[in-house]
């Protein structure tokens, strides 16, 4: 018995057989914020075979209160979260293969991973429903279980969706939530994060050891400050006409129209812009170009950050950019094209 996993193997529903299964599994984690770092550390310590982490953001000081894989040095360097997470996780467990993807988890990217790598599980650690409906479509199209998780303030919610066994997120919601409804600015405390991570990880372990009958089968929610708990069984809501898991699925969130090129980031006062064609910047050259215009620019191997008065432009190698200090897509686009053409 490998000492490292001895306590997990002593747990009867996992055992030696379960540990072998866990070791053979590939999990894709979408988002490396609070829920993402919690799930990532738990998965890697549990000894999965491979973890793919996709995140479009970089580490900031405000993340350190709850995003458990990051350090002050990561925030100072503005390291992309996927990269900083990979570095830390490799120290935690060198046996696990970690793939870090700095970028958007759009329909193209997720579908490519699902089709090429056939992962065993997708874990949602995103902060918006646009991404979740894409995950939901990819999961049902390629028959991969996925686990929803979200939290705000002291409240959290989670649910596992299993193609062929449970209805999907679309069946449950019927409508796609509009931005304002879910962009939370109410803050967050770390126990709410950890609780959601626990619900997600428990279902993840059951899925990885293929103990299907142990799955909760419920949408669960809690509030750790008001001491409330609620859970509803989801098996009754399956709809035959569902565009994702119904009889004639069309996977609407993977269609071309859904491939939005701009996105307002939830609660961040920031807009993300993806150029229609991929670019390839030499970041040092780009930083130099900004400096010659009298601007203050800093580069690391992954991005360039430029101060523009009360706004800040952050450009990644592939041309994707974040404009901080605005929620106005047109204004953000204007800044992007002014400085990057």
């Amino acid at each position, binding site marked *: 018995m490998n000492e490292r996993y001895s306590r997990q193997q002593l747990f009867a529903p996992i055992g030696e057989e379960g540990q072998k299964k866990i070791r053979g599994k590939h999990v894709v984690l979408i988002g490396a914020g609070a829920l993402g770092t919690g799930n990532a550390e738990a998965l890697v310590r549990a000894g999965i075979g491979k973890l793919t982490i996709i995140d479009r953001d970089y580490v900031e000081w405000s993340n350190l209160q709850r995003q458990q894989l990051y350090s002050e040095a990561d925030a100072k360097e503005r390291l992309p979260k996927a990269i900083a997470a990979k570095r830390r996780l490799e120290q935690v467990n060198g046996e696990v293969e970690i793939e870090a993807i700095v970028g958007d988890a759009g329909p193209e990217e997720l579908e490519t991973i699902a089709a090429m790598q056939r992962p065993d599980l997708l874990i949602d*650690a995103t902060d918006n429903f646009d991404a979740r409906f894409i995950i939901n479509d990819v999961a049902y199209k390629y028959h991969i279980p996925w686990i929803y998780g*979200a939290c*705000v303030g002291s409240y959290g*919610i989670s649910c596992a969706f299993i193609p062929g066994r449970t209805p999907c997120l679309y069946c449950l919601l019927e409508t796609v939530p509009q931005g304002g409804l879910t962009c939370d600015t109410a803050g967050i405390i770390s126990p709410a994060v950890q609780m959601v991570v626990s619900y997600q990880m428990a279902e993840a372990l059951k899925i990885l050891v293929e103990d299907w009958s142990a799955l909760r089968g419920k*949408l669960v929610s809690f509030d750790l400050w008001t001491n*409330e708990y*609620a*859970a509803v069984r989801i098996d009754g809501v399956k709809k035959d006409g569902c565009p994702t898991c119904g009889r004639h699925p069309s996977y609407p969130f993977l269609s071309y129209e859904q491939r939005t090129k701009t996105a307002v980031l939830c609660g961040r006062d920031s807009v993300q812009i993806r150029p229609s064609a991929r670019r390839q910047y030499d970041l040092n050259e780009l930083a130099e170009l900004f400096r010659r215009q009298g601007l203050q620019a800093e580069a690391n191997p992954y991005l360039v950050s430029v101060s523009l008065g009360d706004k800040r432009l952050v450009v990644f190698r592939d041309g994707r950019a974040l404009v901080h200090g605005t929620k106005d897509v047109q204004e953000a686009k204007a800044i992007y094209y002014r400085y990057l053409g």
Partner: protein
Amino acid sequence: MTLVINGETVTVPDEVKTVSDLLAYFRLDNKLAIVEVNVRIIQKHEYGTTALCDGDRVEIVHFVGGG
């Protein structure tokens, strides 16, 4: 009327007659919620016509986006 909401016994005013009324009373009517009454999920178009009775067990879970 007395209901068991998310496991807690709660008394609501007489004006609360349906699931719609209940969500409005708790100011959850413009949030995205899943409502279960006596272990049955109520579809959104049934909120206005689903009457609540004394002693009903109601579970309300609302969706959030952050993570």
